[in-house]
C-alpha cells in the first residue's frame, strides 16, 4: 500500500543528481523545471499519502533494505509515516514547493542557477529522510544531510569569503550539537540494543524507571543535538550569520524546516523525555531563556534579515517551551504556523531586498507601502501572525503554548510570564519593522516590484498565515492526550491581550513618535544595554575569546608539530656525536698511538684499583 513512499525523498534526490552532475550546462528553463518539478511531484505524493493515512487511520511504513547488519546492530532503511511525520512532510513539501517557485524567479539572474537548485533539491531530500526515518541512525543521515545543505547554501555566493565563514560557522556550531547527539545514540544503543524508535522506546520504558540518571543523560545528549540544529541556547549563534545565504534559503532552511528539526527530534522521542522530568524541564528552561534573549536582541537589530533570524530563534524557543511543558501538539502546531508566517516574512523581505538592490538596512528603507503593495500586505499579515494578534494562525498556536505553560506543574506561572514578556517584545519588534520599512518617507526608491512567480507564493502563504490556525494536525494518536489548558478567566484574557499592547507601543514609538525613547537609549546605561543586546548578549565574543581563538592559536603555534622536535632532536644529537667523533679521526699515527697508550694505561689502572689489588 505504502510502497510509493520511498519516491517522496527519491524524486528530489534525482533532481539533485541531474542538476549537480550536469554542472550548470542545462538551460535555465529546464533547470527550473527539474528543480521545481521534483519538489512538486513529491508534494503530490505527500498528498496521496495523506489521503491514504486519512482512510486507513493508522501509520504507514515501508522497509527498503537492511543498511548495516553486523554484531547485533542492524538498522534498516525504512520509512514510517504517522500524523507527526505527515505534518512535517506537508510543511516541507508544501512550503518547500512555494519557495522553489519563488526562487525560480528570484535567482534567475544568478550565474549558478543550476547549482542553487541542485542544493535546494538535495536539502529537500535530506529533510524528507530526516522526518521519514524510522530509526535514529537514518534520522541522523538526514540530520547531517540538511546540515551539509545549509552549509552549501549559506555559502552559496562563495566568492565572498565572509559568506564562506558564515557557512562554516553554521556547519561547525551545529556539528557540536550533532556530536552530543551521536554520543547519545551510542549510549542508547549500548543500553537498549537498538536505535529503531518503537523498540527503543519500549525497551526504555521497561528498563528504566522514571528519572533514571542514564536516561536523563541520554535525553540531554539528544537535546544537545536539538539545540544545535534548532539554534537554541547555547548554540544559537550560527543562525543570524547564516542569513548570508540567498533569501529563499533563509526562508526554507533557516525558518520553515531545518531549524525545526530539533523540535521534531524531541517530539519524536517524547516517550524518552517523559521518563525524565529533569530533561523535560531543561527543555522548557532552554526554550524560555532563548525566546527572551533573542527577542531582546531582535529589537536592537537594523538588518531586516537579522531581525527575522532572531525572531526565528525566539519562536523556536516557544516550541521548545511547549515541548518542555508537555504541550507536544501545540509545539508542532506552532512549528507549522511558524513555517507559514516566517517563510512569508522572509520571502516578503526578499521581495523588498530584490526591489531595493540588495539593501538590508531597515533605516535606509521607508514608505514602501504604496510602491510594493504585495510585499507590504505580506509583511503586515506575517507580522500580525508572528505577533499572535487574534484570529491569525500564530494566535492559536502561541496562545495554546502560553496557556499550557501556565498549567505546567513545575514553575508554570514563571514560564508563562517569560513567554508573555517575549510575546510583548515580539509584537514590538515585528511592528517596529513594519512601521519603519513601509511607512514614513521614502528613503530608497524601489525598482519595479517582483513578477507573479514571486507574488503568487506570497499570496498563498498570506492565506495560510491568516487561516492556518484552523488546520487540524493529525497528531492526536502520536502524543499522550493533553489535559488541555484550563481557561482560567484572567489568564485567558491577559494572554491574548499582551500582543495588542505591543503593537500599540510600537505604534507610539516608531510611527506616531508620541513616545520619545531617545533619553533612554542615549543614556549611558541605555547605550551599553543596546550594545549588549545588539551583540546578542556577547555570545559570539565569548565563543571567540574562549574557544575559537585559543584553538586557532594552538594550531598556529604547533603547526610545525612539537612531536617532530623530539625526533629531530634525536637526529641532531646523533649528528653532533658523529661530528665530535669524526674530529678524532685525524689520520696522524702518533695521535692514535698516544691515545692507545693512554687508554691502555687507563684500563690497567682501573683493573688494578677496582679489583682491590687482586690481579691475576
Amino acid at each position, binding site marked *: 500500500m505504502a510502497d510509493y513512499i520511498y519516491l517522496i525523498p527519491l524524486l528530489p534526490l534525482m533532481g539533485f543528481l541531474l542538476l*549537480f552532475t550536469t*554542472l*550548470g550546462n542545462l538551460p535555465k528553463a529546464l533547470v527550473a523545471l527539474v528543480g521545481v518539478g521534483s519538489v512538486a511531484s513529491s508534494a503530490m505524493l505527500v498528498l496521496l499519502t495523506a489521503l491514504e493515512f486519512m482512510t486507513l487511520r493508522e501509520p504507514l511504513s515501508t522497509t527498503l*533494505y*537492511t*543498511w*548495516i*547488519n*553486523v*554484531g*547485533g*546492530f542492524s538498522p534498516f532503511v525504512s520509512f514510517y509515516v504517522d500524523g507527526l511525520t505527515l505534518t512535517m512532510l506537508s510543511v516541507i513539501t508544501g512550503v518547500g514547493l512555494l519557495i522553489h517557485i519563488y526562487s525560480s524567479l528570484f535567482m534567475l539572474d544568478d550565474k549558478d542557477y543550476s547549482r542553487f537548485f541542485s542544493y535546494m533539491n538535495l536539502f529537500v531530500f535530506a529533510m524528507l529522510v530526516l522526518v521519514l526515518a524510522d530509526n535514529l*541512525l537514518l534520522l*541522523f*543521515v538526514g540530520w*547531517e*544531510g540538511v546540515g*551539509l545543505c545549509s*552549509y552549501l547554501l549559506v*555559502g552559496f555566493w*562563495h*566568492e*565572498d*569569503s565572509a559568506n*564562506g*565563514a558564515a*557557512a*562554516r560557522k553554521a*556547519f*561547525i556550531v551545529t*556539528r*557540536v550539537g*550533532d*556530536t552530543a547527539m*551521536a*554520543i547519545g*545514540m*551510542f*549510549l542508547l*544503543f*549500548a*543500553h537498549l540494543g537498538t536505535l529503531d524508535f518503537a523498540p527503543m522506546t519500549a525497551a526504555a520504558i521497561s528498563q528504566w524507571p522514571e528519572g533514571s540518571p542514564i536516561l536523563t543523560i541520554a535525553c540531554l545528549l539528544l537535546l544537545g543535538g536539538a539545540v544545535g540544529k534548532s539554534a537554541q541556547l547555547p548554540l544559537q549563534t550560527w543562525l543570524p550569520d547564516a542569513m548570508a545565504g540567498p533569501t529563499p534559503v533563509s526562508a526554507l532552511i533557516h525558518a520553515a524546516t531545518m531549524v525545526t528539526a530539533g523540535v521534531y527530534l524531541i517530539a519524536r522521542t517524547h516517550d524518552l523525555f517523559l521518563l525524565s522530568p529533569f530533561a523535560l524541564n531543561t527543555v522548557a528552561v532552554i526554550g524560555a531563556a532563548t525566546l527572551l534573549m533573542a527577542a531582546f536582541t531582535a529589537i536592537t537589530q537594523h538588518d531586516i534579515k537579522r531581525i527575522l533570524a532572531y525572531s526565528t530563534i525566539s519562536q523556536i524557543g516557544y516550541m521548545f517551551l511547549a515541548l518542555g511543558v508537555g504541550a507536544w501538539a501545540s509545539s508542532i502546531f506552532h512549528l507549522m504556523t511558524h513555517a507559514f508566517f516566517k517563510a512569508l516574512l522572509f520571502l516578503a523581505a526578499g521581495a523588498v531586498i530584490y526591489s531595493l538592490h540588495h539593501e538590508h538596512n531597515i533605516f535606509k528603507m521607508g514608505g514602501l507601502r504604496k510602491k510594493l503593495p504585495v510585499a507590504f500586505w505580506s509583511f503586515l499579515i506575517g507580522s500580525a501572525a508572528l505577533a499572535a494578534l487574534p484570529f491569525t494562525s500564530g494566535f492559536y498556536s502561541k496562545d495554546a503554548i502560553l496557556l499550557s505553560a501556565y498549567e505546567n506543574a513545575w514553575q508554570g506561572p514563571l514560564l508563562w510570564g517569560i513567554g508573555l514578556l517575549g510575546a510583548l517584545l515580539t509584537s514590538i519588534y515585528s511592528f517596529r519593522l513594519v512601521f519603519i520599512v513601509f511607512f514614513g518617507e521614502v528613503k530608497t526608491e524601489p525598482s519595479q516590484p517582483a513578477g507573479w512567480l514571486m507574488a503568487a507564493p506570497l499570496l498563498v502563504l498570506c492565506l495560510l498565515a491568516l487561516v492556518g490556525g484552523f488546520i487540524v494536525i493529525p497528531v492526536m494518536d502520536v502524543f499522550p492526550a493533553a489535559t488541555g489548558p484550563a481557561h482560567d478567566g484572567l489568564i485567558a484574557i491577559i494572554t491574548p491581550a499582551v500582543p495588542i499592547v505591543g503593537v500599540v507601543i510600537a505604534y507610539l514609538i516608531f510611527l506616531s513618535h508620541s513616545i520619545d525613547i531617545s533619553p533612554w537609549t542615549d543614556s549611558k546605561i541605555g547605550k551599553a544595554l543596546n550594545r549588549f543586546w545588539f551583540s546578542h548578549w556577547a555570545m559570539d565574543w565569548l565563543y571567540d575569546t574562549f574557544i575559537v581563538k585559543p*584553538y*586557532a592559536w*594552538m*594550531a*598556529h603555534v*604547533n*603547526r610545525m*608539530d612539537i*612531536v*617532530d622536535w*623530539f*625526533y629531530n632532536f634525536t637526529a641532531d644529537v646523533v649528528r653532533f656525536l658523529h661530528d665530535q667523533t669524526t674530529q678524532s679521526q685525524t689520520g696522524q699515527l702518533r695521535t692514535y698511538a698516544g691515545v692507545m697508550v693512554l687508554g691502555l694505561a687507563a684500563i690497567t689502572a682501573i683493573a688494578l684499583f677496582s679489583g682491590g689489588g687482586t690481579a691475576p
Partner: protein
Amino acid sequence: MTMILIMLTLFIGGLAAWMIEGWNRDLPRWISIASITLAALLLVPLLDAPVEMLPLAHGVSAPWLEYINVPWIPRFGISFVFAIDGLSLLLVALTIFLGFVAVLSSWSEIEKRPGFFQFNLMWTLAGVVGVFVSLDLFLFFFFWEVMLIPMYLLIAIWGHEKKSYAAMKFFLFTQVSGLIMLVAILALVLVHYSQSGVLTFNYFDLLGHSIDPDLAFWMMCGFFVAFVVKLPGFPFHSWLPDAHTQAPTAASVLLAGILLKTGAYGLIRFTVPLFPDAAAEISTLAMSLGAIGILYGALLAFGQSDFKRLVAYSSVSHMGFVLVGVFAWTELSIQGSVMQMVAHGFSTAALFMIAGALQHRLHTRNMNEMGGLWQEAPRMGAIAMFFIVASLGMPGLGNFVGEFLILLGAFAVNKWITILATLGLVTGAMYALMSLQKVFQGERDHPKKNGGISMPDFGMREMIAMIPMMIGLIYIGVYPQPVFDLVNPVLASLYELTGTNNKIWVGVLP
C-alpha cells in the same frame, strides 16, 4: 596460485617497464596499466571461490579462499605460506585499484626515468600484495621490507624540494620499527621452539600458544610499534607529513591509500590474535593514542597552509579511528575499522590526487596562494567538495559507516575515550571546510593569487580515476553490507579466537 600469479605479474610488469624505458618513454606506463589490469582480472575468480575451513587454534576455524604452503628454507621452518581470506581479498583489491589510480595520477607528471618510476610503483604494489597474503612470519617480514625500498626510491628520486630529508625520515622510521618487529618475530619463533620443539614461522602454528605473560608483552610491543608507526599512530606519526608532502603524487596515493593500511592489517591479523592477553593489557593505552591522534592530527591539519600536509595530517586523524576500533576489539568496532580503511583509502587517495593536480597546474601547494578555483575548474571543485565532505564523515558515504561503527562499538568498551574520539567530528569539519574554502572558494582575482596562471579543469584521464572512487564511496556508504559479508567471517573467527581465551576483551559497560 592466484596470489603468486598476481605478484609475479606486478614484479615482471615492473621489470618490463624499466627495461623498455631506453627504447620508448611512453610505453612503461602502458605496461603498468596492462599488468595492473591483468592482476585485477586474476583476482576476479576469487570473488566467488569456494571457502575452505582451516583450523586456527582453540578449535576455532577460519574460512580461506586459497591456501598454499610450500617449504622454502626447511631448516629454519620457513615456508611460502600464501593464504587469502575475505579481509586479504578486500585489501588486495583495494591495492590493485589504487595502483591503477596511482599510475593514472602520474601519467604526465614524471619526466625523469619514467620506466624506473613505474618499476618502483609496481614493486611497491607487489610488496603490499605480498604483505596482505603472507602468513609465514618470515615471508611477511620479507615483503614488509620489499614494499619499503621502492617507496623510498620513489620519494628520494621523484620527490619535491626536500625529498632527501623526507625519504630518509620515512626509511628510518619504518626500518627501525621493522627491525623491532623482526626481533619480536624471532623471539616468538624461538619461544615456540623451546616449548614444542618445532621450529616454524608459520602463522597457523604460532597462533594460540600460551607464552609467559611478561615475554608475550614485550613481543607484542615489538609488533605493535612496527604497525603503529606505519598506521601512523600518535606519537609515531611525524614521518608521514614529510613523506607525503615531498612524495610525487602517485607515491602519496599509494602511501595514504594502502601502505598505511598494512599497519592496520598487521594489528588485526598479527598483534591481537598472536598475543591477545598482552594486547588486552595495553588496549586502553592504544585506544587513548588513537583518540589523541584523532584530535591532534585534526589540530595539526587545521594549522597547515600546505594542502598536501593538511591531507597528510588528516590521515593521522582518520587512522586514529582505526586504532580505536581495533583495540576496542568488538565485532562492531573491528568491522568499522576495516570499513574506515577502505573509505579512507578512497577519499585520501583522491585528495592527494587533487593536491597533486593543483601543484602540477599552479606550481604551489600553498593554499594561501590559491582561492576561487571553482570558477575555472568546476569539475575539480565539485569532486574536491565530494571527497572533503566524505572525509568529514557525512552519512551516506563510506567514511561515516566506518567511523560510526568504530565509535558505536568502542563506546561499550570505554566510554570516555570514545567521547574524546567523537569530538573528532567537530575538529574534522574545521580543517576540511577550511581547505575547501581556501582552495576552491573565495576571491579568484586577488593579484597575489595564482599569479595569473590559467587553471585547466580535470580532463578525461583524471575523471577516469575519480569517478570509480566516488561511486565506491557512495556504494559502501549506502549499501555496505557486501563488504561486511566478505570480511565478517574472518573477523568473527579472529574475535572468537581471542575471545575464547580472554575475557578482558568482552565489552562490559562501565
